[in-house]
Structures are given as C-alpha cells and as structure tokens.
C-alpha cells in the first residue's frame, strides 16, 4: 500500500474484539464516518476520501464476490467496477436511505449476477440499485437506515444463537442455496429455512425497536 490507511484507525479491526457493546457503538460511528467520506467524494471528487473507502471496502467486496464463486480475475474486475460506479455516482448516494455498506453490497450483488449471465450490456443493465427504488416501496419513514441501526444490527447478530448466526453467514457469504446448506450440515431443508426465518425475524425486530 502506498499510503497509510487512515480508515483503519477508525474502523473496527475485523474479528478483533467480541466486546459487543463496543463493536455495536463502533458500527454506528463507522457508518457516520463512511457517510462523511462519501460526502467528500460527492462534493469535491476527493480522491483521498475515495481511496479510504477503497482501502477498506475493496478487499471485503472481493471476499464477498469470491464467496459467490465468481472466478478471481473477474471478481477483481468487478470490485473495480463497483468502486468506479461509486466514484461516478457518489452524488446519487443518500446516506439517509442506505448506508455505504448496504449500497456497495447491492451494487456488487447486481453486477455479479449480470456478469454471470454473460450479457454484453451487464455494466449498464437496468438491474441496478435504482430498480428497487422504483417499486413504490420507498417510504422514507420506514425504510431509512439510521446510524443507530448499524449498532442495532451488530448487537442483534452477536446475540443470535450460534446455529442461526452460522446459517445467516453461510447464506450471505458462501452463496449457498438453502438445499446446499441443508446437505452440508445434514439438516432438513425445512429446518434450515425455519432457522433463517427466526434469525431474520429477530434482526428485523431489533431494527423496528429503534424506530
């Protein structure tokens, strides 16, 4: 790396601590910090702000895409495309609507799906983050993510029973279908789904509680 990474001082070191209250509060601080960096990119095309986001999120996006079984060279290219999209469309980013991590997650997911289908136009396909916003389900009162939501999610995930936490992680990060998870864990498909359902309900209830 060419420059020291200023973000790393402010962002929770990964897996470093299990002190829940600390990491939960940290999650809210992080979300606010990243919104500020995004504001710098949007207002001033600030390369330093952008590279702070890049240094933190690019390796994580790469890990996520590799988990989706995207081949490494293509995953590396997709990371660059996701970040480039962020650079070019920073003005459209609204931190009141979705956090930076949610935004990046959505874009990476959509680009990877489009690339998998091998459509030549995948880069500018309409299966973009804007798609959801057109569905009329854009009630700001109910769908906005606040910075405290991040603390709540962090706390709620830490509080999940081990089996539920494991299934949630497998679903998101190993891009496994529920049938594959069921096979791998020797668990009936119905139980996999009901564990996931319960985990989701807990996380959602946590979010509703703060609003």
């Amino acid at each position, binding site marked *: 790396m060419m420059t020291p990474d200023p973000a790393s001082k402010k962002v929770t070191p990964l897996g470093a601590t299990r002190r829940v209250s600390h990491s939960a509060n940290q999650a809210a601080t992080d979300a606010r910090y990243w919104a500020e960096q995004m504001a710098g990119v949007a207002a001033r095309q600030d390369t330093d702000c952008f590279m702070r986001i890049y240094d933190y999120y690019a390796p994580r996006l790469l890990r996520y895409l590799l988990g989706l079984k995207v081949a490494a060279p293509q995953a590396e290219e997709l990371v660059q495309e996701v970040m480039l999209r962020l650079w070019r469309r920073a003005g459209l980013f609204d931190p009141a609507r979705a956090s930076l991590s949610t935004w990046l997650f959505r874009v990476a997911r959509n680009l990877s799906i489009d690339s998998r289908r091998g459509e030549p136009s995948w880069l500018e396909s309409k299966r973009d983050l804007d798609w959801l916003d057109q569905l009329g389900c854009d009630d700001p009162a*109910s769908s906005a993510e606040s910075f405290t939501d991040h603390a709540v999610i962090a706390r709620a995930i830490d509080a999940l029973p081990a089996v539920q936490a494991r299934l949630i992680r497998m679903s998101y990060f190993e891009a496994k279908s529920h049938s594959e998870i069921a096979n791998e864990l020797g668990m009936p498909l119905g139980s996999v789904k009901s564990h996931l359902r319960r985990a989701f309900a807990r996380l959602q209830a946590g979010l509703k509680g703060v609003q």
Partner: protein
Amino acid sequence: MTQHHLDSSTLIGYSAGALPRAFDVVVEAHLSICPACCEQLRVAQHIGGHLMSQQQGAALPAGAREAMLARLSEKEPVVPVPRPPELRRPSANTLPEPLWPYFGETYGDLRWRTIGPGVHHIRARDVQDGHLMLLRLAPGRSVPMHSHGGNELTMILQGAYDDSLGHFAPGDVADLDGDVEHQPVTSPGVPCVCVAATDLPLRFSGRLARMLQPLFKL
C-alpha cells in the same frame, strides 16, 4: 391485497445473490407488486451490507490500488446513465414487467402448449439455472397431488386456487420446499395462470399422476 408473501429465507437468498436465476425472476415479479416484501428485502440487504463490512477482506492483486487510481481520471462514458423508465404496473392484459424478457408483455400474445387435459404451459428459454415456466390451469380443476424434490416458488398472475395452505389469488406467492405435498384446486370462472420456478422436477404421487409426469417434465 396480497395475502401470501415471500419467505424471509427466500429474500435472504435473493439479496445475497444465491438463488437460481429462475427464482430471482419470480421474486422480482412479486416485488414489483408488493411493497411489504420490498421492505423486507431492504432489511435483508441491510444485514448483508453489515456482514460484508465486518468480514475479513481478501487480498487484492498487486497493482490493484494503482489501477483503481488510474481509472478515476478516465473520462465518464459519454452517455450518462439515464434513470430507468418508471416501472409499469401490470394491467389486466400485461404481465409483471420482470417477466417480459422471458415471456413477452401481454397475455394475449402467449403461445400456450397443451401438456394435459386443461393444463397448458410455456417454458422460458434462456434460463440456465433452474426451471421457469408459466402454467395455465383450467378453472375448477384439481392438479394431481404432488410434492417438490427441491424448492418451488409460484406467483399467481390470474385466476386463483386453493390448497391446504389457503387461498391464492393474483399477486400471492406460494414459497414451498420439498417437504410440502399439495393438491391445488383452481377456482371456478377464469383459468388460473401462474409463473413458477423450480430447481428440481415435481414429483407426482398416484398412478394417473405418474402417467402425467413425462408430459409435465417440469
């Protein structure tokens, strides 16, 4: 209004990009008419974003950072990305928009193929992952008892049916896994048209039903 919604486990899979393509299509068809499920999807994406940011990163290849910086000075593509046109609500004659690439826009233009008495279908081409089809069942009939080797996600587009899980009307989804055996009975009046995604062939039970199996090849 919609009574039967997407299972949250399905929305997690969708948001993570882990569903077979055929299921994504049915999920999107339902999302296009269901604000409640959109809201659930936002929660699923929020969880995904959070988990992604908490993961240990993977090592980028040498030179990636410099390559990124170099691309920042690239000129923007000449054509700015326009906001996509407003999503059109399905009308009495049009399918939900997410289905258009697979089946066309209007019910009137569908080319149904008969696969059994009172049963028609259209298979979507170009879906490599899973099976995607439209089904049209004559009114007031029962579909042979069947279960699903894997998962089945069905959205009702026209007409209605009843089974042990309840009454399914346009907009509703039946989000079923392999354990469920059901025997839908279509409502009288108009044919029941639905779009269904499956990952494995359906299994019919009973002798007559097994004879139908090769016809369905679902």
